[in-house]
């Protein structure tokens, strides 16, 4: 073994960006993502600091000015007891932006664990767990929510748990299919040839490689979670009055649209729509960045 010649890394090594940097770079060039994330960030700022910059206290009633149409004093008008709709819409982002992301996080963590388990072990484990998850997916969220509320009482925690657990099987399915593909790769066989245990193989070897589909699925689910939170509070299962909340506000005011008091509902509805669209645009961008 004389005259050892040492190869060096291909010269362009240093020029290449890491995979993460590459994804970030392509995200920042995606107009879809930028528009989406701008909308989302707008609402995040409202949720965090809205209380401090809104013109009125969202809870303060003013019966004399009840149901005033949009004007210079009240940009979005006032509701039946004279609360400022603009302030309520801005601050109303607070609960939905805590509940929906936490529910999505729960769904992602539970779904990833289940997906890794079923995709890695396949066979009987997969058959049993997957059938149970499918059965679970067949039950409408609303019914699960009703049952949970009867059992646990109405609270934000209940909403988070209900939505989180209803979405977990969907994420589990995505993760499972990604894991099934990874499992066929030789590095998994190499791990087995080191007598690695299943947990190591699943979480250290496979998990990092299925992060991209998980991230994409999570952002998509976030959009649905926002919608689900709004729906549940519309139905009275989520955030309780007098907290300002879009779904709740629509539900308590929509009876009055017939009377011409459109402003009590329209702006809340637009807020929900814009947040869902923003998250979906961002999700699209993330999907594109990982699949280029």
């Amino acid at each position, binding site marked *: *073994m*004389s*005259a*050892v*010649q*040492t*190869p*060096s*890394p*291909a*010269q*362009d*090594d240093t*020029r*290449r960006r*890491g*995979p993460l940097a590459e994804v970030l770079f392509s995200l920042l060039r995606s107009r879809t993502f930028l528009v989406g994330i701008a909308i989302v960030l707008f609402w995040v700022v409202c949720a965090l600091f809205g209380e401090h910059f809104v013109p009125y206290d969202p809870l303060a009633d003013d019966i004399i000015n009840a149901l005033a149409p949009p004007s210079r004093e009240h940009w979005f008008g006032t509701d039946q007891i004279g609360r400022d709709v603009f302030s309520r819409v801005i601050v109303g982002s607070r609960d939905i932006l805590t509940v929906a992301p936490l529910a999505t996080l729960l769904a992602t963590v539970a779904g990833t664990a289940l997906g890794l388990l079923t995709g890695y072990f396949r066979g009987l484990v997969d058959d049993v767990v997957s059938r149970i998850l499918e059965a679970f997916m067949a039950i409408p969220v609303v019914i699960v929510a009703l049952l949970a509320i009867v059992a646990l009482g109405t609270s934000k925690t209940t909403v988070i748990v209900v939505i989180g657990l209803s979405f977990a099987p969907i994420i589990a399915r995505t993760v499972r299919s990604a894991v099934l593909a990874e499992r066929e*790769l*030789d*590095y998994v*066989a*190499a791990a*087995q*040839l*080191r*007598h*690695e245990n299943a947990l190591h193989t699943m979480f250290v*070897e496979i998990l*990092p*490689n299925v992060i991209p589909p998980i991230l994409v699925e999570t952002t998509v689910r976030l959009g649905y979670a926002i919608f689900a939170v709004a729906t549940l509070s519309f139905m009275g299962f989520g955030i309780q009055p007098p907290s300002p909340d879009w779904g709740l506000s629509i539900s308590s005011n929509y009876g009055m649209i017939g009377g011409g008091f459109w402003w009590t509902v329209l702006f809340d509805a637009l807020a929900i729509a814009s947040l869902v669209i923003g998250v979906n645009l961002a999700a699209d961008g993330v999907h594109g960045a990982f699949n280029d």
Partner: protein
Amino acid sequence: MTEPAKARNALELSDLSVAYRVGGRNRAVLRNLSLTIGQGEAYGLVGESGCGKSTAALAVVRYLPRNGSISGGAIALDGQDVMKLDAEALRRARAESVSMVYQDPGKALNPSIRIGRQLTEIFELAGVSGQAATDRSIAMLNRVRISDPPSVMQRYPHQLSGGMQQRVAIAMALANDPSMLILDEPTTGLDATVEAEVLDLIAQLRQELSASILFISHNLAVVSNMCDRVGVLYAGMLVEEGPTDVVFNDPRHPYTVALLRCLPRGGQRKDQGRLDTIPGFLPGIGTVIKGCAFADRCALATDRCRTELPPLYDLTDERGRRLSRCHYHDQAQALPRATPADVATAPKPATAPVLRVAGLNKTYASHGYPLRAVKDVSLDLRPGETLGLVGESGSGKTTFARLLLGLVPPDAGGTIELEGKALAPKLENRGDDQVKAMQIVFQNPDSALNRSHSIRHILGRALKRLAGLSGKAREARLDDLVRSVRLTDRHLAVKPRQLSGGLKQRVAIARAFAGDPRIVVCDEPTSALDVSVQAAILNLLADLQSKEDVSYIFISHDLGVVRYLSDKIAVLYLGRIMEIGPSEAVFSGPHHPYTEALLSAVPKLDQTETARIRLDGEIPSAVNPPSGCVFHTRCPRKIGPICEQQEPPLAEAQPGHSIRCHIPYAELARLQKAAVAEPA
């Protein structure tokens, strides 16, 4: 040879430059490439991957990827300037006068459309319709030697084997009787036997058709058999050109010389010397090159080479017109070796086998029917010895390797013994010592190395689990390990994707050697690599073997490579050993008719035209293997009904050399002496 003045040339590239826009900068890929292909001529373009071969082909039909652009020069197809064609004329040219066949026929055919429809479509575009188009399609399939075209027309691409798919792709390419046929690595993914058939077909078609051929391949032997003239491309530049046999037998550019030396030739073996390698790397695309592009890797380079771009020296002599882009073309063959040939080999003392396999079977269930992937395999392997496993794809080579490793449990009954102790069928029931004693180097390092982990993590983890090391001891051993596969510390911090194919394979080898294994299975470890890199990896494996006294089970479809590294060869067909014996005995014969056919299929650089044996059709399905001798359906030396009725035993013909054939050994010797001159 064609005189350029005589007729219009089929293809003329003059000073063609192509650049790809990467990271906001135009990077040169082809640099002033000029070449001429005469009417009816076959021109081979060779070079390592990244040289710009495929780019040249795509540029001819102006079909470059979106970020590619032709930055200078001219392309003339049949005297017609391709650069000046408008969209419609370009479409017509692509439809009528030039056709391409790509490397992977599975991807070139539309998976959801029947073969017949894909073929008739081409004729319909040319204005032939209905029954006439069908008839012509059938005629075309006949022409590419497909038996029973009407039934093939009814099938979908996935129902055809790789060889059949490539024939269909060739039929499609020839449908409009193009004047120019571009073949881009047309046989690279195919088995040697199928490759031989497809190459024969192309050679025959050349005589029937008038088409000129641009043949792109990294396989020098294939090009030497198929082409009249050859051009060697390096970093987007033509470095040498001339008649094929002259260039390959009397190369005048150091790059060509070095490429040819990387191949194990003439039955070279590991104990007779190391293969030569090419140091360094191909310049990255877009590198500004002053002087000779190859200077950095050339041991002959002088200051003149580094500063002054060599012109294409005209070396035309009575053997034909030839060019070389080297200032010192007359000294090219004096290129010193980059890797010394000498090896220190001590004769191995006869010792007890490290591995003993007896009666190993593996049966899969395929739609309720048993599929016998490995049938009754018995063999043994001594320390420091290499067993080469050869056979077409589907012969059970990889399954056998996976059975040994315990990745797949064998059927009950067979035994695997490692150093005298029986191994549990399942990996999880084997002891840690047994697991670390048998490791594998996979074919594809991209799949074998976890892309999320750094090289340090990958090797560190292997050392922890296989060698039981941690802390300082592990760091020290990691250093040794990295150096033993000729990587450096700099490689440790990066992820696999930042390394080239050869470097990745070195990491995979280091991982396999982390726990001082007794046996390493090498499953086609070099098939994805360029020849210069392949040579370095083969040398590395040979060096590690002589140092560590490890045994290899070496799987490869490249018989030259197998011969270089193996002490013993087992030839597999439908999961059965057809022949097993010392490497030299198996290669020099007399051998099993299947081995004979495999050897005959290998394209050879040393063009001694031997009587060629071609296998008809494909390897039969293992679900329903032929009766008697499983090879009888394709055997060119079948002797009679006995072959169909009785399975021959694996009989020892010579000490250690066994053949599964009804033909007696002496008779085989007589038959093959007449036919085979000199195997690869």
